[in-house]
């Protein structure tokens, strides 16, 4: 179910995002914190970013581009981008 389809709180979006990221990238959920590096924590290479885009579209219903990732360093940056795209 997409975040845009139902009225989800921002906290629910963050917790849901932590859930699917920890499952798909096999990292401890506790490592997904706003101050941590998205790339390092999820151990992303350039090909993995495609998987990330697919996951975000499937789970949150928003489509990210390569441009969107230029400014993202931490999960906090990532959350802000998601919030902006979801207009929450």
């Amino acid at each position, binding site marked *: 179910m997409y975040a845009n389809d139902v009225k989800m709180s921002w906290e629910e979006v963050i917790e849901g995002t932590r859930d699917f990221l920890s499952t798909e990238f096999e990292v401890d959920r506790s490592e997904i914190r706003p101050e941590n590096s998205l790339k390092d924590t999820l151990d992303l290479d350039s090909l993995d970013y*495609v998987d990330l*885009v697919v996951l975000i*579209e499937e789970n949150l219903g928003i489509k990210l581009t390569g441009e969107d990732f230029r400014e993202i360093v931490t999960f906090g940056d990532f959350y802000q981008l998601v919030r902006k795209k979801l207009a929450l």
Partner: protein
Amino acid sequence: MLITRESITDYIPHRAPFIMVDSLISATEARFETEFCIEADNLLVSNGYFQETGLIENIAQTCAASFGYLAKEQAGEAKIGFIGAIGKLEVFELPPVGATVQTIVIPLHQLGNIYLVKGESFLEGRILLGCEMKIVVTE
């Protein structure tokens, strides 16, 4: 038919004996289709059957031919693509020598110069192999 066997090398970087696609039937931003006849002297034929590796390479070359065709249509130069990763691979059947394989590729996502595509090859309507492939295209 958009590209015949005689001119396919104008659109892909591969050369004999490693050409695993004959003709480009159609190519749009949303769907690519090729045909390939399996000949007895093909490098990837074993015991009379075209092997899984050949079907995978056929999907990759379907992407190469299609990206090359679309780039030239847009007055650009054909770009070179590389297989970055293969996932969700399923093999159902191998085609025998003499068969003509139909291959259909659907681009699913693009992130910069990386494309995620779904490729499937068919023989007389039966699926032979399917997979997802990440193709990295030179910029």
